[in-house]
């Protein structure tokens, strides 16, 4: 029994790292410009398709094409910001919500239009397979994705804390007006946040593509969990998203195992509500 529990814990940890990676992009966008991005799951979906097409057309392994996918999604994030989001930076919250909700539907429609609604999968990747460690089974793609998630988190964190550009981004997040007086172009910063946010989701998609089916509505499976993670970690907190992602993954898998799989999402949501009630700013958010 204890072995099963340890196994469950490890599996929860691995899926949790993926949640964290998806959520980091979301929390980035939110932290810098206070917008909830409903179409974030679709950035993930585009990341998956980007990996898939490079694999099926040019036989390039998703692991090699990760940087390309990240770059492509970065570009998409910036374009989406320039064309749509830049026009609603000062709009009321409801218009912002509905703009990104519209984007979500639009992206799903476009994906279906271009690539049909079929399920697609990358059947062989260099990371396919699994190994056992002291009796605990670990899937190589999941482990790779987990490690990738940690690396990206560390990268984004270092970027924010150690570079001038990151500092400017942070300043914009803290106080737009003050940042402007210091000569920081907030429009540029917002575009950067969208680019990085989309790229994070894209990398998550690329990592997921090695073991998760790919289809136009795939973002729907992740978006709710990503919201919960962002909230739990605190809007705008990178480290918070990592911690909360792991927490949600473990609770979901453990809760499903102990209390019944049909309630696994409900367990996560109840916990999330409880945290909201007593610590609305999340675990690591700024009050």
């Amino acid at each position, binding site marked *: 029994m204890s072995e099963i529990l340890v196994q*469950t814990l490890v*599996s929860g940890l691995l899926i949790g790292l993926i949640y964290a990676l998806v959520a980091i992009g979301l929390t980035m966008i939110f932290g810098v410009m206070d917008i909830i991005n409903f179409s974030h799951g679709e950035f993930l979906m585009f990341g998956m398709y980007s990996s898939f097409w490079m694999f099926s057309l040019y036989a390039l392994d998703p692991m090699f094409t990760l940087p390309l996918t990240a770059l492509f999604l970065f570009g998409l994030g910036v374009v989406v910001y320039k064309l749509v989001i830049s026009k609603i930076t000062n709009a009321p919250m409801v218009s912002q919500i509905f703009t990104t909700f519209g984007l979500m539907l639009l992206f799903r*429609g476009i994906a279906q239009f271009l690539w049909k609604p079929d399920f697609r999968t990358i*059947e062989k990747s260099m990371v396919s397979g699994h190994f056992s460690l002291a009796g605990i089974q670990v899937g190589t793609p999941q482990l790779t994705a987990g490690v990738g998630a940690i690396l990206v988190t560390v990268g984004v964190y270092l970027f924010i804390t150690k570079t001038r550009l990151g500092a400017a981004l942070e300043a914009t997040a803290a106080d737009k007006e003050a940042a402007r007086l210091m000569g920081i172009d907030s429009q540029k910063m917002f575009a950067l946040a969208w680019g990085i946010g989309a790229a994070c989701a894209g990398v998550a998609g690329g990592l997921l593509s090695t073991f998760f*089916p790919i289809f136009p509505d795939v973002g*729907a*499976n992740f978006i709710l969990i990503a919201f919960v993670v962002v909230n739990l970690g605190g809007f705008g907190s990178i480290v918070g998203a990592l911690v909360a992602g792991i927490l949600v993954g473990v609770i979901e898998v453990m809760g499903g195992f102990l209390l019944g799989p049909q309630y696994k999402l409900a367990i996560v949501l109840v916990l999330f509500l409880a945290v909201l009630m007593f610590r609305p700013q999340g675990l690591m958010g700024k009050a």
Partner: protein
Amino acid sequence: MSVKTMCIRLVQAGAAMAISVSAYAQQEIRIGVLYPLTGAAASSGAEMKSALELAVDIINNGAKSVPGLPFSAGGGLPNLKGAKIKLVFADHQGNPQVGATEAERLITQEKVVALVGSYSSNVTVTSSQVAERYKIPFVNPESSSASLTQRNFKWFFRTTAHDDLFVQNFFEFFKELEARKGVKVKKLAAFNENTLWGNETTKLEVKLAAEKGYDLAKTISYPAKGTQLTSEVQLLKAAAPQVVMQSSYLGDAIMAMKTYKELGFSPDMILANNAGFTDTEFIRTLGKDADYVITRDVWALDLAKNNPLIKQVNDLFFERNKINFTGNSSRTFTGLMTLADAINRAGSTEPEAIRKALTETDIPGNKIIMPWKGIKFDDKGQNMYGSGILVQIIDGKYHTVWPFELATREVVWPMPKWDQRK
């Protein structure tokens, strides 16, 4: 004119333009088709749409390579002076209300004489109610929820067998397996997705296991559209059943298989309930890992040795779509052929005449592409001759293994453990 009426007029005008091109063409039988063309089940919807397009192409334009198939001479329906069939497609998005709305639009605006649909059982519920209300025949080729033909509808006809029979098949198979190979199955687990279809299947499995004296050690209903199935597989592993009876759609079926392998869960058999396990993508994705799974199905290509039509029509389908028929698309094809047969016998496009002809349907098994005794409806609109088969995946292909008299291969039992596979 209010804004509202103006808008309605606009929509009317738009719709009128869209259909005026064809609405007044003589010699055209308009059949409404309701499938999920967007949303979660869209990929299945697309395959079924292709199957219908093939059927209509054969009826309207003929197909020399399938002489044994009714209407393969082409030129439309002979008893209606060669009238051609025109399909009007609608998308129900997997949403029951949209299904009802679209059914109503097809009947009242598009003036269809019959409806075919809707795959998703919960949408079939609402859309067939609309057809019942308007007294328009509704042919349902593939929804398997048993309750659909327990509503005493007069206008509802289902060509496929339903879940009652399919779940029954599982237990018949266990019994015959013991007689044939001395394999004793005692301990089972039910692992089904938690929507209408999976939920009804679970209830049947619980009921039948109790009746027939099997030990159903674990019943798991998992939420569809999740991101992982780890907790579910761990629970199965802890229960250690000999056989897992599983109902999953494609994404979950793939995810479940990968998780079984990853966590080293090796029951004697995965006995799957069609859907995801018979989707074209299932074997392509999992490759060797899909081997040895047994799934219920209604159609298999290797059945062509008993019925040449199966391969001939499949060849036509493959030529157009680069994929073989599946249990879904072959049933959809058969549903439309059944409707065409009824309209032709009715010799008219009057709904009541079509309904009457449907009740008198009697198509022998050698005229359809299914391994059924034929098609004949009981007073509830259920085809009495529908049946299921079990197929096992071996070397990346589906082989019929049960009923034993149709089998093309001996069943492999138990499935080899993950770590003993080559």
